[in-house]
């Protein structure tokens, strides 16, 4: 697997995003459409790296307020408590609900952080034409694409709590700005992963090989 055969790109072949048909596309032309479904064909996602970087940088910037600002304000009998993402997980842990605390910790804190680090690593490695562990990097990419969405769980928890607990003076939960920033971080990292073209990881190997 460390020495894969020539890519489709190298053989002037392009798979259709839409119907999966493999089209023959001489590399001399810049624009083409699928022979079967007439969807536009791309050899690689256009400007994949720069767009991915833009989304990633934005998400890193928003990650700070997402964790510092409270995601919800809990008013209970006149007392107002502000919960951040970290304190929410901590609360669950302190109340003995450690499986839940683990889920929240992994989904809300670990996953976004790991995802940003992985994306940054993938982008840097592609730009540097790094030849090492291409398969592992592809797997990492698939992992981030799959796991990234699950960070939204905290946003949904806030939504449900807000919907459920509005008992006036007894208990009232309001969403904080942290939740919005956090949702933005999740969406931006998803977009960053989405526009990143994993085929770029292999291109370098093929050109060298060829």
């Amino acid at each position, binding site marked *: 697997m460390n020495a894969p055969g020539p890519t489709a790109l190298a053989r002037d072949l392009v798979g259709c*995003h*839409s*119907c*999966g*048909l493999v089209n023959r596309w001489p590399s001399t032309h810049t624009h083409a459409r699928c022979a*079967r*479904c*007439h*969807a536009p064909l791309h050899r690689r996602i256009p400007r994949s790296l720069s767009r991915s970087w833009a989304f990633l940088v934005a998400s890193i910037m928003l990650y700070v307020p997402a964790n510092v600002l409270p995601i919800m304000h809990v008013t209970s009998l006149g007392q107002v408590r502000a919960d951040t993402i970290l304190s929410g997980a901590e609360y*669950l842990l302190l*109340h003995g*609900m450690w499986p*839940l605390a683990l*889920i*929240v910790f992994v*989904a809300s804190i670990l996953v976004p952080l790991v995802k940003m680090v992985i994306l940054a690593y993938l982008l840097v490695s592609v730009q540097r034409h790094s030849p090492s562990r291409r398969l592992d990097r592809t797997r990492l990419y698939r992992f981030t*694409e799959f796991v990234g*969405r*699950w960070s*939204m*769980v*905290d*946003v*949904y*928890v*806030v*939504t*449900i*709590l*807000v*919907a*459920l*607990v*509005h*008992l006036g003076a*007894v*208990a009232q939960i*309001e*969403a904080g700005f942290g*939740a*919005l920033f956090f*949702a933005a971080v999740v*969406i931006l990292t*998803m977009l960053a992963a*989405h526009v990143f073209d994993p085929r770029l990881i292999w291109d370098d190997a093929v050109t060298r090989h060829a």
Partner: protein
Amino acid sequence: MLDHGGRDPVAAPLALGITALILFVISNVFPLLEFGLSGQHDTAYLLAGIRQLYAQPAPLLASVVLFTTVLAPLLHIALLIYIYLPLQFGRRPPAFVAALRLVQRILPWSMLEIFLLGVLVAAVKLAEQATIVAGPAAWSLGVLVIVLAAAATQVHPQRLWDRVG
């Protein structure tokens, strides 16, 4: 049975799509969670919760939740039916290509399964202080998640093209 050509590439996604539509309606019409605290009761509906969030005011957050838990799944289901219903009768729907593309695009943004986890976390969080009863919507949401996942595995654009093309 001697001869079996595998599952029908059209009937299964269509059946799952229609099932998903029914479950989606149940999930949005019936209460999600019933909540009781010190003699007071409250019922949480999915849409009412989003409206609550919108009124707080957190309109941006409400839009995100609305899109990922209501609009995206609904679009997904609607597209499934839009594509497969005419195919069932041997016809090719207009804008077939665009619809197929859209299904693939919308899929990551339909986050019902994550929302379900959120419901679970919220319920457990509250269960210590309040009584929480899962409403019909919670159960139908659970089934809906499974049905949508099954539908996603049943959609094979290549096989469709083989059939249509």
